[in-house]
């Protein structure tokens, strides 16, 4: 097998994996702080994708531009969801939270079906089918852009949590809920803020994803599952873990497709999940409970 083919496929896999990582980042951030698993994660991302499609169709706005207002929109949606819907469930059993968010996910999918119908929609920008030549390699331009942005957003988020006062307060809530209450932090507001930040990541990822794949309402559950696989591999609650998990899945699927049967490449991603669960249940970069 030609070496340039292997390298091309590996690079494509890593780039795709970085976008996967951004997609899973929001899920990981929310769980890391609020300790609620957002089962409507993929569906929220699909809402963001449709927002980008509408912005492009109506005003010809490139998804790389519309991702900023969409991230703000999803922040508001996440904030409102946490404040109004999820907070009352925070101290209830996990299965109640699960059913609540699964119901939200079903409502979102069916709402999108009612509004947009089942047809696949996409955004075809001028550079959608461009490639970049690097020696003998031919790299998809859209993947390069989206992966770079995914890295930048992750770095920005990392800096926010490490350096800003609000970020530190959120981390304090995650580390010691009781302690945060004792020192007078408004934990409910910080939870809503975290849910909003996680949702904003989902918004950015959803807008970018329209450049890579076609969107249908039914793609939401697929994204949710994929995000779960990624964060479990990387470690629930770990931001670098989400990115690492994404890259690992992207690379594994690409290599499995190249060396084995392309139709079975998803199986290899899931095989990694099983291995991680067996030998490092907290995930590659996760902390033991």
């Amino acid at each position, binding site marked *: 097998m030609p070496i340039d083919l292997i390298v091309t496929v590996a690079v494509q896999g890593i780039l795709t994996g970085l976008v996967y990582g951004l997609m899973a980042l929001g899920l990981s951030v929310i769980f890391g702080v609020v300790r609620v698993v957002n089962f409507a994660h993929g569906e929220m991302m699909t809402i963001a994708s449709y927002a980008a499609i509408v912005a492009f169709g109506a005003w010809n706005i490139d998804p790389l531009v519309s991702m900023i207002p969409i991230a703000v929109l999803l922040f508001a949606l996440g904030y409102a969801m946490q404040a109004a819907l999820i907070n009352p469930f925070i101290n209830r059993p996990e299965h109640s939270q699960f059913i609540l968010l699964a119901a939200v996910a079903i409502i979102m999918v069916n709402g999108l079906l009612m509004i947009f119908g089942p047809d*696949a929609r996409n955004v075809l920008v001028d550079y959608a089918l461009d490639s970049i030549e690097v020696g003998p390699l031919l790299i998809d331009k859209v993947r390069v852009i989206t992966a770079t942005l995914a890295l930048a957003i992750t770095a920005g988020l990392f800096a926010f949590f490490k350096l800003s006062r609000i970020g530190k307060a959120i981390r304090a809530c995650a580390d010691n809920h009781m302690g945060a209450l004792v020192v007078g932090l408004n934990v409910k507001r910080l939870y809503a803020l975290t849910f909003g930040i996680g949702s904003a990541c989902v918004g950015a990822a959803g807008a970018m994803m329209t450049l890579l794949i076609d969107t249908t309402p039914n793609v939401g559950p697929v994204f949710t599952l994929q995000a779960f696989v990624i964060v479990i591999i990387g470690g629930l609650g770990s931001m670098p873990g989400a990115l690492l998990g994404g890259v690992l899945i992207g690379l594994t699927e690409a290599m499995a497709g190249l060396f084995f049967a392309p139709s079975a490449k998803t199986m290899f991603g899931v095989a990694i999940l099983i291995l991680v669960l067996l030998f490092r249940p907290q995930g590659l970069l996760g902390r033991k409970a």
Partner: protein
Amino acid sequence: MSTKLTRRQFAATAAGAALVAGTAPFNIVKAQTGALKIGSIHPRSGFQAQLGIACQRGIDLAPRVLKQLGINANVEIMNADTESNVDVARARAEKLINDGANVLIGAFDSGQSAAIAQVAEQKGVPYIINVAAAPQITEQGYKFVFRNFPTAPMLVGDGLNLMKGVFEKSGITPKTAVFMHVNDTFGQSMAGAIKAMAPRFNLPFQIVDTIAYDPQAKDLSVEIAKAKATGAEMLMPVTRLNDAILMIREMVKQRWEPQIVMSPGAPGFYEGQFYKTLGKFSNYLLTNVPWYNPRSSITQKLLDEFTKSYKNELFELNVGFSFEAVMVAVNAHNAAKSTAGAALADAIRKTNITDHVMAGGALQFNEKGQNVNIKSVTLQNLDQRPKVVLPLDIAEDNLTLPLPSWTKRS
């Protein structure tokens, strides 16, 4: 008040129940004299939704068009959505029959059609398959299952024959080909048929690689990189719609330009959404597929009505075959003068409709319930719509090959 059931009350209730049960068959007979209830069962949501909806359009138009043709079409259409899922298809078929459907029509997908066929056979309700190619469906000895669509071997046989015609007409004969197929029931049937039949057709090219991919794939970059690396001069894809779009998009990105891209008989390239999404990149691709006969007067009538009802949609084979399925059911209903399953099945078996929509011979079914008279044509995407280029007697335009470079298209 005592709620205990006395022996006398029990006897009276049992007698009443027996009377109702005894007269039930007469009620059925009474119901059977009315309109023909057609259960239209298609994937109208899920990943096959667009194609299921296209089938539905053919079904919805049929009663109106048949009446305009002077055919007595006393029908009531009942709709069900399989959600692109085999188990849902089975359950919805049962529900349609329980709700009184006299005939089932569907289901676009081979896996779903096979599940519906089992239910229809068990319940004794005729099932007319409009689109589904897996050969095993009509190899089970079913008495109530009929298919007005070619089997995978028929598709492949016609497809491979037409390939030779394309090479001859264009003067371009590839020496190598790569075969890519969606890894579902249909794709595997086609792959099996090609593997079995290709040696018999003395094809001028060698299949250098076969690449199967996930039907719900969101990305085909690896698959196309692998196919490109073979250096094949021709791509033979067996696709659905969404993956066909992904495939061509990825070919453009990876600048893979084989001389010919020709589907041996599969959906994807000739569908409205394909043109809308890919624009100029949809042009010059070839598909050997059963298609409507553009010279038929019924086709023209159906096309007129379709254009009036669905201005922005494309009239294609799913519409045509679905219309014909209703035509077969109505013809059988008129001949049998009954809605009873056995009578309708007998009438369908005797179908002989010479003037119809799709290319090929008379609409007839063999002892297995298969219409063996359907013929494929070669379609080429020109001006962002499918046009018949072979056979020449019904051709709408000239064949254009080799495939122009992706980067040199206006």
